[in-house]
């Protein structure tokens, strides 16, 4: 890590009954860094975030935020969070936006001024509105506003744009980026690959409670080293292709065969040796989407 860590997670584990939702997670987030926690549903993202916030105690391992225990960090206003809300708004009925922000800010020892919070969250013109009448995107801005009231050093966002259309997602992330630019680290959970790639400098991939990859999107792609071998072939035997060296998966569409390979050189040599006829051979990187699939799918059949 280049600078001091604002978040340090070591050997974190959490068991629910017979399943281990988080099975040994190590994670450091540097001051000011933006990190995506990427994984499918059930990967342990929300459980990890709940332990970082001290809402849930770990079965093993430890978390420090700014060198403090999670509950202490919350009490000191070091960390702000936006978690997934259930069915409703996540906000108390009948209250006004400005009133909520003033109340939450008043709980903290050294908060941002309510006016600054509203400005950062793009809510200045909605301060007098009741939360009941806001749109989904506006409500999410209110939740974001509450998360930054503390003037935190670390923002935790659990799937913050789930259910958003692309423009609403973009606009939300512009808001987050503008705030984070003032030196706040952001750790957010998502199962949207594009969101992780666009919004975070670093991606940590979580699968079945384990960190299976940690780096930039490019680094993850290289780590996984999945290459896609594509070619046209008139008559093909997909069973034979599946048996080629290093092939993980075979797909076929409109006469184009696509092989996912962990060693594209070996696959191509095998293909040539097999004597099959093919044209238009190309080898490409599989991209984060496929890297992600390779990381998070069960063993390919």
């Amino acid at each position, binding site marked *: 890590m280049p600078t001091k860590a604002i978040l340090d997670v070591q050997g974190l584990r959490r068991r629910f009954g017979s399943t281990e939702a988080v099975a040994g997670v190590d994670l450091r987030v540097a001051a000011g860094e933006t990190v995506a926690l990427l994984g499918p549903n059930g990967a342990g993202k929300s459980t990890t975030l709940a332990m970082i916030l001290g809402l849930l105690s770990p079965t093993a391992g430890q978390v420090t935020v700014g060198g403090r225990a999670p509950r202490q960090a919350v009490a000191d206003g070091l960390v702000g969070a936006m978690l997934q809300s259930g069915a*409703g708004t996540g906000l108390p009925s009948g*209250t006004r936006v400005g009133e909520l922000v003033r109340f939450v800010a008043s709980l903290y020892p050294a908060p941002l001024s309510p006016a600054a919070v509203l400005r950062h969250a793009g809510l200045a013109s909605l301060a007098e509105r009741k939360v009941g009448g806001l749109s989904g995107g506006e409500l999410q801005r209110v939740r974001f506003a509450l998360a930054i009231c503390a003037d935190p050093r670390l923002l935790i966002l659990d799937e913050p744009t789930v259910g958003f259309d692309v423009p609403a997602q973009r606009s939300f992330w512009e808001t987050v980026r503008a705030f984070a630019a003032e030196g706040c680290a952001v750790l957010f959970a998502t199962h949207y690959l594009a969101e992780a790639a666009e919004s975070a400098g670093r991606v940590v991939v979580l699968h079945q409670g384990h960190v299976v990859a940690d780096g930039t999107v490019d680094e993850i792609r290289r780590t996984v080293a999945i290459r896609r071998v594509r070619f046209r072939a008139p008559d093909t035997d997909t069973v034979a292709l599946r048996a080629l060296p290093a092939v993980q998966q075979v797909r076929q569409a409109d006469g184009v065969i696509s092989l996912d390979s962990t060693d594209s050189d070996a696959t191509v040599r095998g293909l040539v040796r097999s004597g099959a006829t093919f044209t238009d051979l190309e080898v490409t990187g599989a991209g984060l989407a496929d890297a992600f699939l390779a990381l998070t799918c069960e063993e390919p059949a």
Partner: protein
Amino acid sequence: MKTHRPPLASFLAFELRRVLRSPAILVWTLAFPVVFYLLNFANKTNNRGAQRWAGTTWPVYFMVSMCAWAAIAAAVNAGGARLAAERANGWTRYLRLTPLPSWAYAAGKLLTGAALALMAALALALIAGAAARPQLPASAWAAMILACWLGSLPFAALGILVGLAAGTSVAEPAMVGTVLVLNVLGGLLWPLPVFPHWLQGIAKVLPTYRLVDLGRAAVTGHALNPADMAFLVAWTLLFGATAAWCYRADQQRLIG
């Protein structure tokens, strides 16, 4: 920036503003006891002049019952459906991500219920006093209101318990039903002697009976019964401890 207020003070102010903004809560709370009092205080079969109602007249006796009713119905709004909704939509959990301690959250809700109960008891005493004009010393008025107010504390705890234990759709009917049963069995509508003997035994354990008994002693200037206070404290602790247990269970469920 103003100086830093204790989180409990901020939370209490926030909650009070919320409930006072919707006076409908208070109006609905008061509607039944007020209307019922106005319809019944002059009831001739109750021989309103005679001092045979726990040592006082029927209009005073019944005023204590309805004052207790108003305080109880107001106090349960500390929790109830509003709390159930806040729990379901994640607001309760969000507050755990702020420096507001759990005890301050509970205390803020209880005190909000207590404030509503005091307003309801005052309002009922005012309306009943204007209608029935009972001749009572100022100290008796004060004692009755104080008894109904403080005696409503177990019901604020009960409201929080129901808000924590019940789902959003059942919290309101569960609350109304529980209060109605407790009030009727506690002798707030009909005096206890109309009940069969075994039911009177049950009634005397209930917090509603103990509250109204305390109120009657207060208004007539009789010695307060220590058993009334002991029962009210015990019910507060029972409801409070059960609510605390539900709260903890709920926190685990919300995350898992």
